[in-house]
Protein backbone atom coordinates (compact mmCIF):
# COMPACT_ATOMS: atom_id res chain seq x y z
CA UNK A 1 0.00 0.00 0.00
CA UNK A 2 1.47 3.34 -0.99
CA UNK A 3 1.55 6.22 1.43
CA UNK A 4 -1.26 8.18 -0.24
CA UNK A 5 -3.90 5.48 0.16
CA UNK A 6 -2.56 4.78 3.63
CA UNK A 7 -3.17 8.38 4.71
CA UNK A 8 -6.61 8.53 3.05
CA UNK A 9 -7.72 5.28 4.69
CA UNK A 10 -6.34 6.40 8.06
CA UNK A 11 -8.14 9.76 7.89
CA UNK A 12 -11.43 8.08 6.96
CA UNK A 13 -11.06 5.64 9.83
CA UNK A 14 -10.21 8.39 12.31
CA UNK A 15 -13.20 10.52 11.28
CA UNK A 16 -15.53 7.55 11.44
CA UNK A 17 -14.32 6.37 14.85
CA UNK A 18 -14.42 9.86 16.35
CA UNK A 19 -17.92 10.46 14.99
CA UNK A 20 -19.24 7.15 16.31
CA UNK A 21 -17.46 7.64 19.60
CA UNK A 22 -18.84 11.14 20.17
CA UNK A 23 -22.33 9.94 19.31
CA UNK A 24 -21.81 7.08 21.72
CA UNK A 25 -20.69 9.51 24.42
CA UNK A 26 -23.76 11.70 23.86
CA UNK A 27 -26.12 8.75 24.07
CA UNK A 28 -24.33 7.29 27.09
CA UNK A 29 -25.30 10.44 28.98
CA UNK A 30 -28.91 9.94 27.93
CA UNK A 31 -28.77 6.25 28.83
CA UNK A 32 -27.38 7.15 32.22
CA UNK A 33 -30.14 9.67 32.94
CA UNK A 34 -32.83 7.29 31.76
CA UNK A 35 -31.53 4.25 33.65
CA UNK A 36 -30.84 6.10 36.89
CA UNK A 37 -34.32 7.60 36.61
CA UNK A 38 -35.82 4.12 36.23
CA UNK A 39 -33.84 2.86 39.21
CA UNK A 40 -35.18 5.78 41.26
CA UNK A 41 -38.77 5.37 40.00
CA UNK A 42 -38.75 8.46 37.76
CA UNK A 43 -39.13 8.95 34.03
CA UNK A 44 -35.96 10.81 33.13
CA UNK A 45 -35.87 13.13 30.11
CA UNK A 46 -38.98 12.65 27.94
CA UNK A 47 -39.64 16.05 26.37
CA UNK A 48 -37.11 16.49 23.55
CA UNK A 49 -37.99 14.11 20.73
CA UNK A 50 -39.63 10.70 21.13
CA UNK A 51 -38.68 9.15 24.51
CA UNK A 52 -36.30 12.09 24.99
CA UNK A 53 -34.03 10.70 22.28
CA UNK A 54 -32.94 14.16 21.08
CA UNK A 55 -31.95 15.30 24.59
CA UNK A 56 -28.16 14.88 23.96
CA UNK A 57 -28.49 17.19 20.94
CA UNK A 58 -30.25 19.81 23.05
CA UNK A 59 -27.57 19.45 25.73
CA UNK A 60 -24.85 19.92 23.14
CA UNK A 61 -26.46 23.07 21.76
CA UNK A 62 -26.84 24.36 25.33
CA UNK A 63 -23.14 23.77 26.07
CA UNK A 64 -22.09 25.62 22.94
CA UNK A 65 -24.37 28.59 23.56
CA UNK A 66 -23.48 29.09 27.25
CA UNK A 67 -21.21 31.98 28.15
CA UNK A 68 -17.57 30.88 28.33
CA UNK A 69 -16.40 32.43 31.59
CA UNK A 70 -12.77 32.64 32.69
CA UNK A 71 -12.57 33.61 36.38
CA UNK A 72 -10.10 36.25 37.61
CA UNK A 73 -6.69 35.18 38.87
CA UNK A 74 -6.56 31.84 37.09
CA UNK A 75 -3.32 30.67 35.51
CA UNK A 76 -4.76 31.32 32.10
CA UNK A 77 -2.72 29.16 29.72
CA UNK A 78 -2.93 26.08 31.94
CA UNK A 79 -6.62 26.77 32.68
CA UNK A 80 -7.30 26.52 28.94
CA UNK A 81 -4.85 23.65 28.32
CA UNK A 82 -6.23 21.35 31.04
CA UNK A 83 -9.62 20.37 29.51
CA UNK A 84 -8.00 19.95 26.08
CA UNK A 85 -5.40 17.60 27.55
CA UNK A 86 -8.05 15.52 29.31
CA UNK A 87 -10.09 15.17 26.13
CA UNK A 88 -7.10 14.56 23.86
CA UNK A 89 -5.73 11.77 26.03
CA UNK A 90 -9.05 9.96 26.17
CA UNK A 91 -9.14 10.17 22.34
CA UNK A 92 -5.58 8.82 22.04
CA UNK A 93 -6.55 5.76 24.06
CA UNK A 94 -9.35 4.85 21.64
CA UNK A 95 -6.93 4.92 18.67
CA UNK A 96 -5.33 1.58 19.56
CA UNK A 97 -8.56 -0.31 20.25
CA UNK A 98 -9.54 -2.91 17.65
CA UNK A 99 -13.29 -3.10 17.07
CA UNK A 100 -13.36 -6.16 14.85
CA UNK A 101 -11.34 -8.28 12.41
CA UNK A 102 -11.23 -6.52 9.02
CA UNK A 103 -13.49 -4.85 6.51
CA UNK A 104 -13.37 -4.65 2.72
CA UNK A 105 -14.79 -1.51 1.13
CA UNK A 106 -14.46 -0.94 -2.64
CA UNK A 107 -11.56 -3.40 -3.00
CA UNK A 108 -9.59 -2.02 -0.06
CA UNK A 109 -9.20 -4.32 2.93
CA UNK A 110 -8.36 -2.68 6.22
CA UNK A 111 -8.37 -3.56 9.89
CA UNK A 112 -11.22 -2.25 12.01
CA UNK A 113 -8.83 -0.26 14.15
CA UNK A 114 -7.20 3.14 13.68
CA UNK A 115 -3.66 1.85 14.26
CA UNK A 116 -4.15 -1.49 12.51
CA UNK A 117 -3.21 -2.38 8.94
CA UNK A 118 -4.08 -5.25 6.63
CA UNK A 119 -1.22 -6.81 4.65
CA UNK A 120 -1.37 -8.00 1.05
CA UNK A 121 -1.71 -11.65 2.10
CA UNK A 122 -4.80 -10.84 4.17
CA UNK A 123 -3.10 -10.98 7.56
CA UNK A 124 -3.74 -8.16 10.00
CA UNK A 125 -1.33 -6.49 12.35
CA UNK A 126 -1.49 -3.65 14.81
CA UNK A 127 0.80 -1.67 17.06
CA UNK A 128 2.53 -4.18 19.34
CA UNK A 129 2.47 -2.06 22.49
CA UNK A 130 -1.26 -1.23 22.32
CA UNK A 131 -1.94 -1.95 25.96
CA UNK A 132 0.99 0.18 27.12
CA UNK A 133 -0.23 3.09 25.00
CA UNK A 134 -3.58 3.00 26.77
CA UNK A 135 -1.82 2.97 30.16
CA UNK A 136 0.42 5.85 29.01
CA UNK A 137 -2.55 7.89 27.81
CA UNK A 138 -4.31 7.48 31.17
CA UNK A 139 -1.18 8.46 33.07
CA UNK A 140 -0.80 11.63 30.95
CA UNK A 141 -4.54 12.27 31.36
CA UNK A 142 -3.91 12.81 35.09
CA UNK A 143 -2.26 16.12 34.14
CA UNK A 144 -5.54 17.39 32.72
CA UNK A 145 -7.27 16.95 36.05
CA UNK A 146 -4.35 18.01 38.23
CA UNK A 147 -3.71 21.20 36.25
CA UNK A 148 -7.43 22.04 36.03
CA UNK A 149 -7.71 22.09 39.81
CA UNK A 150 -4.50 23.99 40.39
CA UNK A 151 -4.90 26.61 37.67
CA UNK A 152 -8.51 27.42 38.68
CA UNK A 153 -7.20 29.13 41.85
CA UNK A 154 -10.10 27.84 43.94
CA UNK A 155 -9.94 25.72 47.08
CA UNK A 156 -12.65 23.31 45.96
CA UNK A 157 -10.97 22.74 42.61
CA UNK A 158 -7.56 22.22 44.19
CA UNK A 159 -8.85 19.73 46.76
CA UNK A 160 -10.83 17.89 44.09
CA UNK A 161 -7.88 17.64 41.76
CA UNK A 162 -5.51 16.53 44.53
CA UNK A 163 -7.95 13.81 45.45
CA UNK A 164 -8.40 12.81 41.82
CA UNK A 165 -4.73 12.58 41.01
CA UNK A 166 -3.86 10.73 44.22
CA UNK A 167 -6.65 8.29 43.53
CA UNK A 168 -5.70 7.78 39.90
CA UNK A 169 -2.01 7.22 40.69
CA UNK A 170 -2.86 4.74 43.46
CA UNK A 171 -5.34 2.72 41.46
CA UNK A 172 -3.22 2.73 38.31
CA UNK A 173 -0.84 0.33 40.08
CA UNK A 174 -3.58 -2.18 40.83
CA UNK A 175 -4.95 -1.71 37.30
CA UNK A 176 -1.59 -2.35 35.66
CA UNK A 177 -0.86 -5.38 37.84
CA UNK A 178 -4.27 -6.91 37.18
CA UNK A 179 -3.42 -6.93 33.45
CA UNK A 180 -0.16 -8.86 33.94
CA UNK A 181 -2.04 -12.16 34.35
CA UNK A 182 -3.60 -11.68 30.90
CA UNK A 183 -0.21 -10.84 29.42
CA UNK A 184 1.26 -14.03 30.89
CA UNK A 185 -1.49 -16.10 29.28
CA UNK A 186 -1.48 -14.37 25.89
CA UNK A 187 2.26 -13.50 25.79
CA UNK A 188 1.62 -10.35 23.78
CA UNK A 189 1.00 -6.65 24.38
CA UNK A 190 -0.83 -6.19 21.08
CA UNK A 191 -4.57 -5.95 21.68
CA UNK A 192 -5.39 -7.70 18.40
CA UNK A 193 -3.10 -10.57 19.34
CA UNK A 194 -4.67 -10.85 22.79
CA UNK A 195 -8.11 -11.11 21.22
CA UNK A 196 -7.04 -13.67 18.64
CA UNK A 197 -5.66 -15.94 21.40
CA UNK A 198 -9.17 -16.00 22.84
CA UNK A 199 -10.76 -17.65 19.82
CA UNK A 200 -12.36 -21.08 20.22
CA UNK A 201 -13.27 -22.87 23.43
CA UNK A 202 -11.45 -24.18 26.50
CA UNK A 203 -10.04 -27.68 26.28
CA UNK A 204 -10.58 -29.22 29.72
CA UNK A 205 -9.81 -32.76 30.88
CA UNK A 206 -9.31 -34.01 27.31
CA UNK A 207 -12.71 -32.66 26.23
CA UNK A 208 -13.56 -29.74 24.05
CA UNK A 209 -16.03 -27.80 26.17
CA UNK A 210 -18.65 -25.27 25.15
CA UNK A 211 -17.02 -22.72 27.45
CA UNK A 212 -15.60 -19.92 25.24
CA UNK A 213 -11.84 -19.42 25.45
CA UNK A 214 -12.17 -16.07 27.23
CA UNK A 215 -9.69 -14.97 29.85
CA UNK A 216 -12.45 -14.08 32.31
CA UNK A 217 -12.60 -17.76 33.34
CA UNK A 218 -8.97 -18.33 34.41
CA UNK A 219 -8.50 -14.68 35.41
CA UNK A 220 -11.71 -13.82 37.24
CA UNK A 221 -9.78 -12.33 40.20
CA UNK A 222 -7.86 -10.10 37.80
CA UNK A 223 -11.16 -9.13 36.20
CA UNK A 224 -12.64 -7.91 39.48
CA UNK A 225 -9.45 -6.03 40.35
CA UNK A 226 -9.48 -4.46 36.88
CA UNK A 227 -13.13 -3.48 37.16
CA UNK A 228 -12.73 -1.82 40.56
CA UNK A 229 -9.49 -0.07 39.64
CA UNK A 230 -11.02 1.11 36.37
CA UNK A 231 -14.04 2.55 38.19
CA UNK A 232 -11.63 4.46 40.40
CA UNK A 233 -9.57 5.58 37.38
CA UNK A 234 -12.61 7.08 35.71
CA UNK A 235 -13.73 8.79 38.94
CA UNK A 236 -17.14 7.14 38.94
CA UNK A 237 -19.38 6.17 41.83
CA UNK A 238 -18.50 4.55 44.27
CA UNK A 239 -15.09 6.19 43.79
CA UNK A 240 -16.24 9.66 42.75
CA UNK A 241 -14.72 11.52 45.71
CA UNK A 242 -12.94 14.02 43.42
CA UNK A 243 -16.33 15.47 42.51
CA UNK A 244 -18.20 14.76 45.74
CA UNK A 245 -20.79 17.53 45.47
CA UNK A 246 -21.65 17.53 49.18
CA UNK A 247 -18.06 18.41 50.08
CA UNK A 248 -16.41 20.00 47.07
CA UNK A 249 -19.16 21.64 44.96
CA UNK A 250 -17.99 19.86 41.80
CA UNK A 251 -14.31 19.16 42.41
CA UNK A 252 -11.72 19.95 39.78
CA UNK A 253 -14.17 21.40 37.22
CA UNK A 254 -15.95 23.77 39.62
CA UNK A 255 -14.65 26.87 37.86
CA UNK A 256 -15.24 25.66 34.32
CA UNK A 257 -18.22 26.56 32.18
CA UNK A 258 -19.55 26.09 28.67
CA UNK A 259 -17.48 23.97 26.25
CA UNK A 260 -14.52 23.70 28.63
CA UNK A 261 -16.76 21.94 31.12
CA UNK A 262 -18.20 19.86 28.30
CA UNK A 263 -14.67 18.71 27.41
CA UNK A 264 -14.17 17.26 30.90
CA UNK A 265 -17.62 15.74 30.70
CA UNK A 266 -16.91 14.13 27.33
CA UNK A 267 -13.49 12.93 28.51
CA UNK A 268 -15.08 11.18 31.49
CA UNK A 269 -17.66 9.37 29.38
CA UNK A 270 -15.08 8.53 26.73
CA UNK A 271 -12.90 6.99 29.41
CA UNK A 272 -15.87 4.91 30.51
CA UNK A 273 -16.23 3.61 26.95
CA UNK A 274 -12.47 2.93 26.71
CA UNK A 275 -12.56 0.97 29.96
CA UNK A 276 -15.52 -1.02 28.65
CA UNK A 277 -13.68 -1.72 25.37
CA UNK A 278 -10.53 -2.80 27.19
CA UNK A 279 -12.46 -5.11 29.52
CA UNK A 280 -14.16 -6.63 26.47
CA UNK A 281 -10.87 -7.12 24.63
CA UNK A 282 -8.92 -8.55 27.54
CA UNK A 283 -11.47 -10.62 29.42
CA UNK A 284 -14.47 -11.24 27.17
CA UNK A 285 -12.86 -12.32 23.91
CA UNK A 286 -13.31 -9.04 22.03
CA UNK A 287 -15.42 -9.58 18.92
CA UNK A 288 -15.52 -13.38 19.22
CA UNK A 289 -18.98 -14.85 19.44
CA UNK A 290 -21.27 -17.22 17.54
CA UNK A 291 -21.20 -16.57 13.78
CA UNK A 292 -24.08 -17.71 11.58
CA UNK A 293 -26.21 -16.76 8.61
CA UNK A 294 -25.32 -15.30 5.19
CA UNK A 295 -21.87 -13.74 4.54
CA UNK A 296 -23.14 -10.19 5.09
CA UNK A 297 -24.43 -11.11 8.55
CA UNK A 298 -21.17 -12.93 9.30
CA UNK A 299 -19.22 -9.76 8.47
CA UNK A 300 -21.37 -7.60 10.75
CA UNK A 301 -21.78 -10.01 13.68
CA UNK A 302 -18.26 -9.54 15.20
CA UNK A 303 -18.81 -5.78 15.48
CA UNK A 304 -22.24 -6.47 16.96
CA UNK A 305 -20.82 -8.80 19.63
CA UNK A 306 -18.14 -6.26 20.45
CA UNK A 307 -20.66 -3.44 20.78
CA UNK A 308 -22.96 -5.61 22.88
CA UNK A 309 -20.19 -6.45 25.34
CA UNK A 310 -19.13 -2.81 25.61
CA UNK A 311 -22.77 -1.85 26.16
CA UNK A 312 -22.93 -4.37 29.00
CA UNK A 313 -20.04 -2.62 30.76
CA UNK A 314 -21.58 0.84 30.31
CA UNK A 315 -24.82 -0.54 31.68
CA UNK A 316 -22.90 -1.94 34.64
CA UNK A 317 -21.35 1.49 35.28
CA UNK A 318 -24.75 3.13 35.41
CA UNK A 319 -26.32 0.33 37.41
CA UNK A 320 -23.63 0.65 40.06
CA UNK A 321 -24.10 4.42 40.09
CA UNK A 322 -27.76 3.91 40.87
CA UNK A 323 -27.00 1.36 43.61
CA UNK A 324 -23.94 2.14 45.67
CA UNK A 325 -23.09 5.06 47.99
CA UNK A 326 -19.72 6.78 47.98
CA UNK A 327 -16.63 5.59 49.85
CA UNK A 328 -14.91 7.66 52.53
CA UNK A 329 -11.49 8.86 51.44
CA UNK A 330 -9.50 6.76 53.93
CA UNK A 331 -11.56 3.71 52.94
CA UNK A 332 -10.74 4.38 49.30
CA UNK A 333 -6.99 4.54 49.92
CA UNK A 334 -6.98 1.52 52.25
CA UNK A 335 -9.01 -0.50 49.74
CA UNK A 336 -6.62 0.29 46.91
CA UNK A 337 -3.33 -0.20 48.71
CA UNK A 338 -4.14 -2.85 51.29
CA UNK A 339 -6.61 -5.02 49.43
CA UNK A 340 -6.47 -4.64 45.63
CA UNK A 341 -2.68 -4.33 45.28
CA UNK A 342 -1.74 -7.45 47.35
CA UNK A 343 -4.53 -9.40 45.67
CA UNK A 344 -3.22 -8.41 42.24
CA UNK A 345 0.31 -9.49 43.19
CA UNK A 346 -0.97 -12.82 44.52
CA UNK A 347 -2.86 -13.33 41.26
CA UNK A 348 0.33 -12.71 39.26
CA UNK A 349 2.30 -15.21 41.37
CA UNK A 350 -0.32 -17.95 41.02
CA UNK A 351 -0.79 -17.34 37.30
CA UNK A 352 2.93 -17.31 36.54
CA UNK A 353 3.42 -20.52 38.56
CA UNK A 354 0.71 -22.25 36.52
CA UNK A 355 2.10 -20.91 33.24
CA UNK A 356 5.62 -22.04 34.24
CA UNK A 357 4.44 -25.53 35.26
CA UNK A 358 2.55 -25.96 32.00
CA UNK A 359 5.45 -24.88 29.80
Amino acid at each position, binding site marked *: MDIKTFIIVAVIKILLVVFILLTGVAYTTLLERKLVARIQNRWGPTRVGPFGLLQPLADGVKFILKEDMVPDNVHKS*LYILAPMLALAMSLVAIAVIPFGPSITVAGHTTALQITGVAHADGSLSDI*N*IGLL*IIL*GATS*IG*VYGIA*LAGWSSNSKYSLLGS*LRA*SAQMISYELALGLSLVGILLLSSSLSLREIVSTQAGTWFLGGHNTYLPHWYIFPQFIAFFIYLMAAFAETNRIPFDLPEAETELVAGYHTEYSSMKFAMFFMAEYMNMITVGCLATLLFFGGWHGPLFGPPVLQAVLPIFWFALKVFFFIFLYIWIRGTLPRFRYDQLMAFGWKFLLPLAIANIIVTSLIVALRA
Partner: protein
Amino acid sequence: MVHQILFIILALISVAGAVNLLAQRHPINSALSLVVVMGSLAMIYLLLGAEFVAAIQVIVYAGAIMVLFVFVIMLLNAGAEERTRGSRLALLLGVPGVLVLGCLLGWTMVSNSKQLGGVSISPTNFGQTSNVARLLFRDFLLPFEITSVLILIAIMGAVVLGRRES
Protein backbone atom coordinates in the same frame (compact mmCIF):
# COMPACT_ATOMS: atom_id res chain seq x y z
CA MET B 1 13.23 10.41 4.50
CA VAL B 2 10.10 10.51 6.65
CA HIS B 3 12.20 9.29 9.56
CA GLN B 4 14.64 12.14 9.11
CA ILE B 5 11.92 14.80 8.95
CA LEU B 6 10.22 13.38 12.04
CA PHE B 7 13.52 13.20 13.87
CA ILE B 8 14.34 16.84 13.12
CA ILE B 9 10.89 17.99 14.26
CA LEU B 10 11.03 15.95 17.48
CA ALA B 11 14.60 16.99 18.21
CA LEU B 12 13.65 20.65 17.79
CA ILE B 13 10.66 20.19 20.11
CA SER B 14 12.76 18.51 22.77
CA VAL B 15 15.50 21.17 22.63
CA ALA B 16 12.89 23.93 22.70
CA GLY B 17 11.29 22.27 25.74
CA ALA B 18 14.64 22.06 27.49
CA VAL B 19 15.41 25.74 26.82
CA ASN B 20 11.92 26.69 27.96
CA LEU B 21 12.47 24.73 31.17
CA LEU B 22 15.36 27.04 32.01
CA ALA B 23 13.70 30.21 30.81
CA GLN B 24 10.34 29.86 32.59
CA ARG B 25 9.97 31.58 35.94
CA HIS B 26 7.10 29.58 37.35
CA PRO B 27 8.11 26.11 38.57
CA ILE B 28 4.96 24.46 37.20
CA ASN B 29 5.73 25.72 33.70
CA SER B 30 9.26 24.35 34.02
CA ALA B 31 7.93 20.98 35.16
CA LEU B 32 5.52 20.85 32.23
CA SER B 33 8.26 21.68 29.74
CA LEU B 34 10.22 18.76 31.18
CA VAL B 35 7.17 16.59 30.39
CA VAL B 36 7.33 17.87 26.80
CA VAL B 37 11.04 16.96 26.62
CA MET B 38 10.32 13.47 27.90
CA GLY B 39 7.40 13.01 25.54
CA SER B 40 9.45 13.97 22.48
CA LEU B 41 12.29 11.73 23.66
CA ALA B 42 9.78 8.88 23.81
CA MET B 43 8.83 9.61 20.21
CA ILE B 44 12.52 9.50 19.21
CA TYR B 45 12.82 6.08 20.88
CA LEU B 46 9.80 5.04 18.84
CA LEU B 47 11.58 6.15 15.66
CA LEU B 48 14.52 3.94 16.66
CA GLY B 49 12.17 0.97 16.85
CA ALA B 50 12.33 0.74 20.64
CA GLU B 51 8.60 0.68 21.34
CA PHE B 52 8.80 -0.76 24.82
CA VAL B 53 11.34 1.81 25.98
CA ALA B 54 9.19 4.57 24.46
CA ALA B 55 6.06 3.39 26.25
CA ILE B 56 7.89 3.04 29.57
CA GLN B 57 9.38 6.51 29.11
CA VAL B 58 5.86 7.93 28.85
CA ILE B 59 4.30 5.81 31.61
CA VAL B 60 7.10 6.06 34.18
CA TYR B 61 8.85 9.38 33.53
CA ALA B 62 6.22 11.61 31.94
CA GLY B 63 3.37 9.90 33.76
CA ALA B 64 4.42 8.88 37.25
CA ILE B 65 7.54 10.81 38.20
CA MET B 66 6.59 14.17 36.68
CA VAL B 67 3.08 13.94 38.16
CA LEU B 68 4.75 13.72 41.56
CA PHE B 69 6.87 16.80 40.73
CA VAL B 70 3.76 18.72 39.69
CA PHE B 71 2.02 17.45 42.82
CA VAL B 72 4.72 18.78 45.11
CA ILE B 73 4.73 22.14 43.33
CA MET B 74 0.95 22.33 43.68
CA LEU B 75 0.98 21.37 47.36
CA LEU B 76 3.77 23.76 48.30
CA ASN B 77 2.09 26.42 46.17
CA ALA B 78 5.50 27.56 45.00
CA GLY B 79 5.35 31.00 43.44
CA ALA B 80 7.34 32.44 40.59
CA GLU B 81 11.05 32.36 41.28
CA GLU B 82 12.85 35.56 42.10
CA ARG B 83 15.67 36.44 39.84
CA THR B 84 18.87 38.24 40.59
CA ARG B 85 20.79 39.88 37.83
CA GLY B 86 23.35 37.10 37.94
CA SER B 87 27.00 37.61 37.44
CA ARG B 88 27.98 39.26 34.23
CA LEU B 89 30.99 37.00 33.92
CA ALA B 90 28.75 33.93 33.65
CA LEU B 91 26.79 35.53 30.84
CA LEU B 92 29.88 36.72 29.02
CA LEU B 93 31.80 33.47 29.28
CA GLY B 94 29.00 30.92 29.68
CA VAL B 95 26.96 31.43 26.51
CA PRO B 96 29.93 31.55 24.10
CA GLY B 97 31.48 28.67 26.04
CA VAL B 98 28.41 26.50 25.49
CA LEU B 99 28.38 27.41 21.81
CA VAL B 100 32.07 26.58 21.38
CA LEU B 101 31.66 23.29 23.24
CA GLY B 102 28.64 22.34 21.13
CA CYS B 103 30.48 23.13 17.89
CA LEU B 104 33.54 21.23 19.03
CA LEU B 105 31.55 18.13 19.99
CA GLY B 106 29.54 18.24 16.77
CA TRP B 107 32.62 18.69 14.63
CA THR B 108 34.45 15.84 16.38
CA MET B 109 31.54 13.49 15.93
CA VAL B 110 30.97 14.36 12.29
CA SER B 111 34.66 14.14 11.36
CA ASN B 112 35.13 10.81 13.18
CA SER B 113 31.80 9.32 12.17
CA LYS B 114 33.52 6.48 10.33
CA GLN B 115 35.43 5.24 13.36
CA LEU B 116 32.44 5.73 15.69
CA GLY B 117 30.14 3.61 13.56
CA GLY B 118 26.38 3.93 13.57
CA VAL B 119 23.26 2.33 14.97
CA SER B 120 21.05 0.79 12.36
CA ILE B 121 17.32 0.83 12.87
CA SER B 122 16.08 -2.74 12.83
CA PRO B 123 13.23 -4.40 14.67
CA THR B 124 15.51 -6.97 16.32
CA ASN B 125 17.95 -4.45 17.70
CA PHE B 126 16.84 -3.42 21.17
CA GLY B 127 13.95 -1.93 23.05
CA GLN B 128 11.37 -4.46 21.95
CA THR B 129 9.44 -5.95 24.83
CA SER B 130 10.87 -9.45 24.42
CA ASN B 131 14.46 -8.22 24.03
CA VAL B 132 14.28 -6.03 27.11
CA ALA B 133 12.69 -8.86 29.07
CA ARG B 134 15.40 -11.32 27.95
CA LEU B 135 18.13 -8.94 29.07
CA LEU B 136 16.49 -8.09 32.39
CA PHE B 137 15.21 -11.48 33.49
CA ARG B 138 17.84 -13.81 32.07
CA ASP B 139 21.18 -12.21 31.21
CA PHE B 140 21.21 -9.56 33.94
CA LEU B 141 18.87 -11.12 36.47
CA LEU B 142 21.13 -10.70 39.52
CA PRO B 143 22.00 -7.01 38.96
CA PHE B 144 18.31 -6.34 38.27
CA GLU B 145 17.20 -7.94 41.54
CA ILE B 146 19.96 -6.21 43.50
CA THR B 147 18.86 -2.86 42.05
CA SER B 148 15.31 -3.52 43.23
CA VAL B 149 16.60 -4.20 46.76
CA LEU B 150 18.58 -0.95 46.53
CA ILE B 151 15.44 0.97 45.60
CA LEU B 152 13.59 -0.67 48.50
CA ILE B 153 16.33 0.50 50.87
CA ALA B 154 16.03 4.03 49.46
CA ILE B 155 12.26 4.00 50.03
CA MET B 156 12.71 2.80 53.60
CA GLY B 157 15.33 5.49 54.19
CA ALA B 158 12.93 8.12 52.91
CA VAL B 159 10.19 6.87 55.25
CA VAL B 160 12.57 6.91 58.24
CA LEU B 161 13.79 10.44 57.43
CA GLY B 162 10.22 11.59 56.84
CA ARG B 163 8.88 10.67 60.28
CA ARG B 164 11.92 11.39 62.42
CA GLU B 165 10.48 14.17 64.61
CA SER B 166 8.70 11.84 67.09
